[in-house]
């Protein structure tokens, strides 16, 4: 199969056309480039504003990218502190419970000793009285006491 050649070129016809297209296109874009360079001041200013906005956005993004790993690091350290608690931390956290139990025991002991001392006072009063304790078991004596208490 033989390739067809353009009469004015050593290139095959297809390549010649392609090269010609590229040359024409590039010359047209030279004109377009001139048009782009001659934009009104208002347009170039708005483009400059847009560019600055974009650069500010990029700076914000970079700052966030720096701060985020630091926050993650702090979070990881916090998690490490709370996850396997140290012996001291466990002892300190148990301290309020120990204090509460000790307080309850002391209150109970104080209450028992109060009851014992009250009973001892009653016993000593009974024993020191002239009336024998057995008299309080006598129904006649009880009746006597009731009749004297009533007006």
């Amino acid at each position, binding site marked *: 199969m033989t390739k067809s050649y353009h009469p004015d070129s050593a290139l095959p016809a297809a390549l010649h*056309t*392609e090269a*010609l*297209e*590229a*040359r*024409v*296109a*590039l*010359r*047209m*874009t030279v*004109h*377009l*480039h*001139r*048009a*782009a*360079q001659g*934009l009104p001041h208002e*347009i*170039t200013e*708005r*483009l400059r*504003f*847009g*560019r600055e*906005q*974009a*650069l500010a*956005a*990029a*700076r914000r*993004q*970079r700052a966030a*990218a720096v701060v985020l790993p630091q926050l993650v690091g702090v979070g990881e350290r916090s998690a490490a502190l709370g996850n396997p608690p140290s012996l001291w931390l466990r002892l300190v956290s148990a301290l309020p419970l120990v204090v509460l139990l000790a307080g309850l025991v002391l209150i109970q002991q104080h209450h028992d000793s109060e009851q014992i001392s009250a009973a001892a006072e009653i016993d000593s009063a009974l024993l020191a009285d002239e009336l024998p304790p057995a008299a309080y078991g006598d129904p006649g004596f009880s009746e006597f006491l009731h009749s004297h208490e009533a007006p």
Partner: protein
Amino acid sequence: MASDKELSDFLKSVEKRAFKRTVYAVRDEDGALDVVQDAMIRLAEKYADRPAAELPLLFQRILSNATMDWFRRQKVRGAVLQNLSDFETDDTDGDFDLLESLESAEGMLGAESAADTVARSQILLAIETEVAALPTRQREAFLLRYWEELDVAETAAVMGCSEGSVKTHCSRAVHALAQALRTKGIAP
């Protein structure tokens, strides 16, 4: 990672072309400014950590997406789809000699005199008008390939199509522009 200066320099180098390219697409300067600003901010927010060499391709893709988003917001997607189908109907002018047209267009453009500013502005206006009138995909391929100087593979990646489609779109765009210039008889 692209530094602040690299990002700034890149945006500065690309913003005017991006604006013109978007104006051709949306035909509204305010809308184009919004789209370009949106694309620049998206690039800075999401891809500022990428190497500077990757920024051009990423930006072109973001700009294309931002332009499509603008069309969606404007609820003119139907018009865009209509334009997309335009490139299927290029064969109506059967006796048009593409090569002749290209060669004559090259001659006109190549012979442009820098001193003749009036003629130059006429050519410029004509080219801009014709570029804006191209079907969307052809214009996109033409501008990315020849103005942004992306290669065929990069253009295909930005446009989300095959390299063959890029070549077809570019070829049709160049021929359409050359034919339009020839029809207008633009001579420098």
